[in-house]
């Protein structure tokens, strides 16, 4: 005859001996995680179930979160919980079925952080085109730092590089990377940060999937370029970084341009600017020359006009003279005709007509003169609008030497002390040369 305790003890020993290390596949249900840190659940298949417990020491090693209904493969040992007489499996290891634990953890964290908007495109900061100081978060011992330094130095030899050394794999690496990112941010003068490491297994690269690293990159005010492993390795750091480089050397290429190319670009821009200006000046000078030639034309035309005016006035004077002469002649004839009749009356009449007649003549002459003058003025005004004199109205001036009135084209045409007259749109300035610079504009 056995007691319940004795039987339970025998069963326990027997079960524990026989099932000390087993692999089991099933579906998780009745998940409970009380404050103790232990996790309790039931593993079941279509027809049976078994109680399971994951003690805290094993639970903290889990990289992914257990979920109701999840298919898992577990390893553990069977035991009997004597107070209830229930057998259960004590889990040592839990793996998601069909997918690695790390892969699952990656997917779970990615989903959670994506839902927070951490990977959103709008969060991404632009990478500065010309950083002065580049921060690097990586290990001093890896290949990554050598690659990065080599590329940075080759492209931009005068770059200031500030390395925040960290371990890039293993326990605590994630925390170090996050702190280094914060340190470089605090340093203040860093323009862009490269964070990364060389290639390795998924396990090796794991630090760059840790939440603390992802959040540190998201929190960085300085733009961050991620460079983890090779092209095919994708980590959460890559998702959150402002720019993802496929490898450390590529990150270095992405953050700095090639110095000699920039200097060449500067030179090219400056030369182009000078060429355009020289062309522009030559063009304006041509226009000015044309303008000055135009001015000469105007002078000639003015002289012509004046001469024509003189001619017309002469002709008028002649006409008036003729009119007066013929009038006098007619008066004399009239006087002669009338002398036999009433000479006194005729003479008086005749004398009265003369001033009246000559007044009319003079009036007519005035009208004709005024008309001609008006026509000349109109012609001159028209000439003026067509004339390059208008150039002066746009702010140019013509420089002439005094007293020889030579128009200046080159500074070397005059010497210090030469007196000049500047013809402006309105008025003239008398100037004196204090310095002669014979440079062209560039």
């Amino acid at each position: 005859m056995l007691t319940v305790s004795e039987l339970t003890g025998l069963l326990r020993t027997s079960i524990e001996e026989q099932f000390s290390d087993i692999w089991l596949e099933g579906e998780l249900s009745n998940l409970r995680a009380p404050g103790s840190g232990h996790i309790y659940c039931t593993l079941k298949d279509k027809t049976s179930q078994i109680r399971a417990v994951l003690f805290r020491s094993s639970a903290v090693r889990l990289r992914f979160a257990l979920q109701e209904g999840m298919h898992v493969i577990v390893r553990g040992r069977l035991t009997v919980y004597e107070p209830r007489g229930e057998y259960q499996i004590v889990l040592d290891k839990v793996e998601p079925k069909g997918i690695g634990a790390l892969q699952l953890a990656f997917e779970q964290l990615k989903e959670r952080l994506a839902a927070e908007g951490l990977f959103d495109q709008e969060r991404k900061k632009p990478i500065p085109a010309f950083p002065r100081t580049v921060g690097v978060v990586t290990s001093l011992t890896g290949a990554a730092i050598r690659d990065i330094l080599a590329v940075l130095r080759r492209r931009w030899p005068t770059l200031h590089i500030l390395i925040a050394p960290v371990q890039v794999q293993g326990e605590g690496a994630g925390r170090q990377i996050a702190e280094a990112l914060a340190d470089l941010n605090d340093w203040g003068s860093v323009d862009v940060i490269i964070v990364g490491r060389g290639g390795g297994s998924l396990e090796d690269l794991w630090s760059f999937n840790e939440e603390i690293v992802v959040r540190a990159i998201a929190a960085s005010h300085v733009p961050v370029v991620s460079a983890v492993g090779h092209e095919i390795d994708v980590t959460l750091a890559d998702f959150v970084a402002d720019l993802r480089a496929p490898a450390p050397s590529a990150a270095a290429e992405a953050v700095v341009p090639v110095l000699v190319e920039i200097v060449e670009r500067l030179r090219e821009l400056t030369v182009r600017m000078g060429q355009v200006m020289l062309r522009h000046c030559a063009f304006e000078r041509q226009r000015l020359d044309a303008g000055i030639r135009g001015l000469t034309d105007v002078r000639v035309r003015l002289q012509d006009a004046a001469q024509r005016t003189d001619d017309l006035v002469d002709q008028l004077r002649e006409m008036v003279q003729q009119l007066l002469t013929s009038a006098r002649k007619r008066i004399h004839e009239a006087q002669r005709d009338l002398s036999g009749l009433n000479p006194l009356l005729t003479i008086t009449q005749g004398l009265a007509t003369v001033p009246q007649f000559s007044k009319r003549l003079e009036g007519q002459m005035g009208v004709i003169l005024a008309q001609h003058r008006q026509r000349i003025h109109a012609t001159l005004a028209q000439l003026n609008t067509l004339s390059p004199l208008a150039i002066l109205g746009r702010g140019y001036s013509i420089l002439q030497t005094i007293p020889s009135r030579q128009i200046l084209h080159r500074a070397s045409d005059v010497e210090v002390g030469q007196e000049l007259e500047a013809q402006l749109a309105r008025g003239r300035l008398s100037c004196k040369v204090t310095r002669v610079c014979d440079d062209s504009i560039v």
Partner: protein
Amino acid sequence: MAAVKFEQAMARLEAIVGELEKNDLPLDESLKIFEEGIRLSKNCLKILEEAEHKVEVLVQDKNGKKRIHAYSPDDTADEPSS
């Protein structure tokens, strides 16, 4: 920040050259932006010349204070231990 200043200066310089090459400005305005362009070009060169080539390592000393020292390729002792 010098990096930003340089970037802006280069961008402005590109814009000025584009503007001048359009060839539709009066001479005095052309001259004005040309002078600005020459100034920018000189400033850019100055910034490039000023840059100092340094590779440094940011470390934490025993009191938890951050300091920097020059990097040497054999220098591997600076990683914080876990």
